[in-house]
């Protein structure tokens, strides 16, 4: 690939006004990292999601929230109270030069402020307004209060996760709003493609529940086609329609993920893998089997149990790094069950320059963030700047762009409008 430093980002001529809290922040970030000028519009005093931990050095503070920093990277920031008529007037002026507006308020909130899609499109017919809510703008659940635990449950995802003898369990990380936010960016760019051909903007109405339903794969179709709940939660095992196999295995210092005979690549690697077992006096009866032509569903369960027992013993003698390095060498499918530390130490991610160091002068440090998820022959992921401080770009936007005087700006600040 050519020198990335010289390459332009793909979306650097567009402006986004980002009104979202934590439930929609990834949408604007996904556009900002492709070069869009994303301006976070916070209420005076800062967005409430700045209070969500964990915090830099575990000390709470509006410029120290790690989720906030992570999902607002590369954005600029202004403050504005859109619940006041002065604030609404200023917001409408900003709409004239904006291409996109992203919001995650309760359905109806912007309409009540006369800032809904119909009002915004009168000012700027090309504007694309993207709304990210738990269940969408209309419908019987549209007003429901739904943090991640609720949308995960309502999507059907939660039911299938965890151990069979305990309640269903969620990821210990809010995932459903990331799904909704990122799919929102997709819908936004589809609307943009249409706008560039037709001049027409539109309203993009995103449901977080539906976004998460997408991640289920089988469950709705099992019911529709077979009237069956084909999957149940089985901890580290995978079970569908009564067929069970082990996927997560303990090893010497943690866990690895491996599935016996996983499709052709798994079978191809078996001879070498069995040789590794044999070298330690394990898996003697696995020698000489024609793995490539074995039908896993026709192998007697007691054979599988015996093989899994031998493999499990082998894994317990080795660390996950050893097992993974061996799998890379043997082109076997095994993966380490990684912690965040393992991911950060990955040689693969280092080889692709995945991590980016972003300066935080106020914290007197640089912070390492996940970076480019693609390489291109022509364009580059945009390594910009840290998330904005509260109201950091008020002067740039209100004075330089909207032409307010210093006195007007400070009066608006005194009135708690900015």
């Amino acid at each position, binding site marked *: 690939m050519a020198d990335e430093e010289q390459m332009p980002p793909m979306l650097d001529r567009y402006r986004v006004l980002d009104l979202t809290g934590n439930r929609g922040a990834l949408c604007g970030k996904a556009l900002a990292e492709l070069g869009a000028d994303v301006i976070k519009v916070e209420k005076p005093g800062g967005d409430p999601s700045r209070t969500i931990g964990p915090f830099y050095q575990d000390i709470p503070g509006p410029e120290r929230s790690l989720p906030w920093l992570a999902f607002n990277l590369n954005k600029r920031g202004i403050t504005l109270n859109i619940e006041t008529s002065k604030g609404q007037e200023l917001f409408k002026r900003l709409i004239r030069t904006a291409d996109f507006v992203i919001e995650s308020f309760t359905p109806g909130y912007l309409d009540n402020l006369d800032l809904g899609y119909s009002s915004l499109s009168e000012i700027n017919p090309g504007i694309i307004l993207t709304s990210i809510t738990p269940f969408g703008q209309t419908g019987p659940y549209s007003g429901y209060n739904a943090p991640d635990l609720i949308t995960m449950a*309502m999507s059907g995802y939660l039911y299938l996760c965890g151990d069979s003898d305990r309640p269903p369990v969620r990821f210990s990380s809010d995932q459903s709003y990331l799904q909704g936010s990122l799919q929102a960016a997709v819908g936004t760019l*589809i609307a943009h493609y249409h706008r560039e051909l037709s001049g027409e903007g539109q309203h993009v109405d995103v449901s977080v529940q539906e976004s998460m339903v997408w991640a289920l794969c089988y469950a709705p179709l099992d*019911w529709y086609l077979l009237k069956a709940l084909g999957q149940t939660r089985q901890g580290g095992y995978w079970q569908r329609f009564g067929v069970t196999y082990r996927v997560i295995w303990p090893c010497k210092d943690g866990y690895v993920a491996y599935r016996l005979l996983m499709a052709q690549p798994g079978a191809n690697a078996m001879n070498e893998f069995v040789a590794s077992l044999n070298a330690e006096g394990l898996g003697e009866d696995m020698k000489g089997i024609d793995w490539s032509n074995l039908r896993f569903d026709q192998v007697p369960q007691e054979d599988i149990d015996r093989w899994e027992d031998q493999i499990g013993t082998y894994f317990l003698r080795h660390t996950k790094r050893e097992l993974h390095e061996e799998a890379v060498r043997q082109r076997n499918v095994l993966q380490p069950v990684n912690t965040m530390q393992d991911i950060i130490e990955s040689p693969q991610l280092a080889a692709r320059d995945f991590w980016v160091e972003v300066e935080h002068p106020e914290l007197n440090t640089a912070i390492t963030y996940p970076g480019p998820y693609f390489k291109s022959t022509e364009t580059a992921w945009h390594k910009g700047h840290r998330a904005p401080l509260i109201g950091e770009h008020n002067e740039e936007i209100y004075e330089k762009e909207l032409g307010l005087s210093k006195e007007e700006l400070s009066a608006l600040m005194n009135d708690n409008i900015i």
Partner: protein
Amino acid sequence: MMKNNALAGLKVVDFSWVFTGPIVTKYLGDHGAEVIKIESAVQPDGTRVITPFKDGIPGIDRSGVFANYNSSKYSITINLQEPRGVEIARKLVARADIVLETFAPGAMSRLGLDYDELQKVKPDIIMLSMSMFGQYGPYSNQPTFGQLLQTTNGFAHLLGWPDRAPSLPVAPYTDYIAPWYILIALLAALDYRRRTGKGQYIDLSMHEASAHFTAPELLAYTVNNRIQNRMGNRCPDAAPHGVYPCKGHDRWCTIAVFNNDEWQALCQVMGNPGWARSSSFDTLLHRRENNEELDRLIGEWTINYAPEDIMDRLQAAGVAAGVVQTGEDLIDNDPQLRHRQHFVEMNHAETGNHLTERPPFRLSRTPSEPQRPFPSFGEHTEYICQEILGMGDAEFAELVGTGVLY
């Protein structure tokens, strides 16, 4: 309102298979793009041969997941081991805007269909290769699957109970992150091409894209040197925050209380039981300290009701609560998904009705709508060769006869 025309005129040649790539091209097709899916008889798309099947009968045109992920597409079956098969693929690329492929790194080169070759027939082509780890790097040639890769990304370590081994996410979770990043990159590349006239080759890694979904947890390590561990259903900012048993077999509801107003509202709906007035539960801090006892007491209340009752009553009082829905609930019971028409039933000429999901966003002027049901295996081979590529009858028959086309 003009349905499914947002991307009208866009042409996509799709070499991808299984979940991630086909989801991408379904989204494009359901918004009006022309998607030509290149299929192989030697190794059909794995999704064509997985359960659930229509009526429970296996068959290459009977898979429910395939039906879901392949609406709006044309299917052409080509033997890409044959030079003349490769030539047909190149002709399709010559009239396309986008090429998507998800083979192991190097496979397209071996077929003579890598970016350098395709650029010769279409100089401004946008080509995206998605692979597990990217096209280069020490792990790029290790074969693996989303079911295992999700653990490489930390999603198993973050799922489950602190006193137990990690749990396996039910479906390959990273397979449901990569499609959205691929779509964003492709749509941005189209915009870039429209303004500059330049196409590009994009090497996208599922592992890297998925790392963005644990960005705060990664930062917790890079700045605080702390490894985030799984914590069941606990949340540092809420209590109660859990999954509670309800009336019926394996029925559950979720309740999440982030502040004291919500706590008071929950107590009121529960009928203000005496225990709820205890100082053990009067503040978020105390409720967190006594989480286990709190969960047990709430469970003694919820077990008397259906999860829908709990949700409706608590939501009416402003408390976050939901049903732990099953596949049955999503299809038969959920009035919101029905209102949004999330699942669309489509009639496939040979195998009857199938479901396909709609993207979770509704565009007010140009909403998605599947153009047609999923294609039968090779359904459009003749149409594409003759109507789109202008091949004559004799040539077509000869290519079929010699096994270049199936």
